């Protein structure tokens, strides 16, 4: 079905799915959010564990995420105009945060990698602080972008920001596991335990969000839950999020014997892939509030 016919069919349906974010070129926005989220988490975790390679990976991921965001826009050449309304717009705040991260992180990395003697100097410190502010913003803003979407009851939940922040942490840990396996460095102390803890938090937040949407009384939110658990997105959710993102990593972690670098890399990659499918399915599950005459107003 072409885009026009799809739109007409959607307009006729009782529960109109949003297709602008998450389908067609809209997938680029989900990819952008996914990459930027992992970048924020990786920068944070790499700073915590002192992994310079992690900082570099985070920077590259953020840059790729920024490119994905730009490619999603209808008019990317006007992107700098997005800084104007940071007082009210979460998209604008995200843009500012990402810009700060790329500028500050770039300065800090350049000094650390190319002039290590200046790594504790003023320039590096300023870059580090700017990058830290950017990190906080890019980890936090995505969930709020969705929560601010009043048209989509399933997203319009106070739990969404918490879920996205937890995703960023999980992504950061997953990235460190992969980096550790590739560079041959041992995984930082407690990293696996942290992955299990954060994964439990993600599962809890998601379960609470699903429960809230299902029991909250909004028909559009219920429709979204139905789409995820037993509808058009069930394959993405069960196959991508649950099987790939949860069962595979847990099976690798619970397997008897020493955790090899390859196994750790697979845990990280599967975890990150699961996060992507989780984000994709929740974004695609968005259904607009139906427009109906309230029952008590149907007769004068």
């Amino acid at each position, binding site marked *: 079905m072409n*885009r*026009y016919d799809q*739109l*007409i069919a959607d*307009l006729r349906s009782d529960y*109109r799915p*949003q297709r*602008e*974010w998450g389908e067609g*070129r809209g997938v680029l926005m989900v990819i952008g959010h996914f990459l930027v989220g992992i970048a924020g988490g990786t920068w944070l975790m790499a700073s915590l564990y002192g992994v310079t390679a992690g900082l570099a990976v985070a920077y590259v991921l953020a840059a790729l995420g920024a490119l994905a965001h730009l490619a*999603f*826009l*209808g*008019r*990317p050449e*006007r*992107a700098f*105009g*997005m*800084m*104007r*309304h*940071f007082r*009210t*717009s*979460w*998209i*604008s705040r995200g*843009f500012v945060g990402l810009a700060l991260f790329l500028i500050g992180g770039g300065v800090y990395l350049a000094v650390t990698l190319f002039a290590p003697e200046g790594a504790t100097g003023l320039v590096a410190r300023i870059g580090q602080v700017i990058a830290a502010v950017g990190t906080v913003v890019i980890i936090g803003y995505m969930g709020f*972008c*969705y929560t*601010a*979407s*009043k*048209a*989509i009851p399933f*997203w319009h939940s106070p739990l969404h920001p918490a879920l996205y922040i937890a995703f960023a942490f999980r992504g950061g840990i997953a990235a460190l596991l992969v980096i550790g396996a590739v560079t041959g460095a041992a995984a930082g102390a407690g990293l696996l335990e942290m992955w299990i803890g954060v994964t439990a938090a993600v599962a809890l937040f998601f379960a609470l969000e699903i429960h809230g949407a299902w029991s909250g009384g909004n028909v559009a939110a219920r429709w979204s839950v139905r789409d995820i658990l037993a509808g058009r997105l069930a394959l993405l959710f069960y196959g991508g999020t649950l099987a790939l993102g949860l069962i595979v990593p847990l099976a690798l972690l619970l397997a008897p014997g020493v955790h090899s670098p390859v196994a750790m890399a697979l845990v990280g990659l599967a975890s990150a892939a699961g996060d992507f499918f989780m984000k994709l399915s929740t974004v695609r599950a*968005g259904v*607009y*509030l139906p*427009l*109906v*005459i*309230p029952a008590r*107003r*149907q*007769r*004068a």
Partner: protein
Amino acid sequence: MRLGMVIDLKRCMACYGCQMSCKAEHGTPPGVFFARVLKREEGHYPTPRMLFLPVLCNHCSDAPCVSACPTGASHYAEHGIVDIDHDKCVGCRACMMACPYGNRYFHDERRYYFGDAGPTPYEQACSDRYPEGVVMKCNFCRHRLAEGKDPACVENCAAKARTIGDLDDPKSTVSRLIKERGGFTLHPEAGTGPNVYYLAP
């Protein structure tokens, strides 16, 4: 002055006159409907009935689309009309996710009603108004209001179901209709302060 509209659902007969006149006035591309009419069947045999609901941008007083817009493209124009500056829009579509009424459309690529036959002279003339890669919506026909005319959907409503006027003026027709007939808005729980009111069917 706060411009608002009242739509009398008792008068509306779902003739699509508003939708068609809006299309004709603005020359919007396929897939873009500033005004549209929703139809729904209610009840069961032997007492089913059709409910008609004409919808358009609600020009909310606390418009979430304006807050969500990162560039200021979505803005309040004169008399509280919510409009889009196409020269500022980046096409991020955050406004579409913010609008609880789903009355915004993304113009992703140029399309014409007769496909391979190309644009009609009218479509050609109108296409310059709507650049690609931006979001579009109803603006209460600001150009007509500036000329002292009513919006096209109001002017062409055969049943005179639509009335436009100043909601801040308690003596205006719209204020009187809302007061006397118990006008209601769609999704008041969204807290957006919509300025399009409906009178019960």
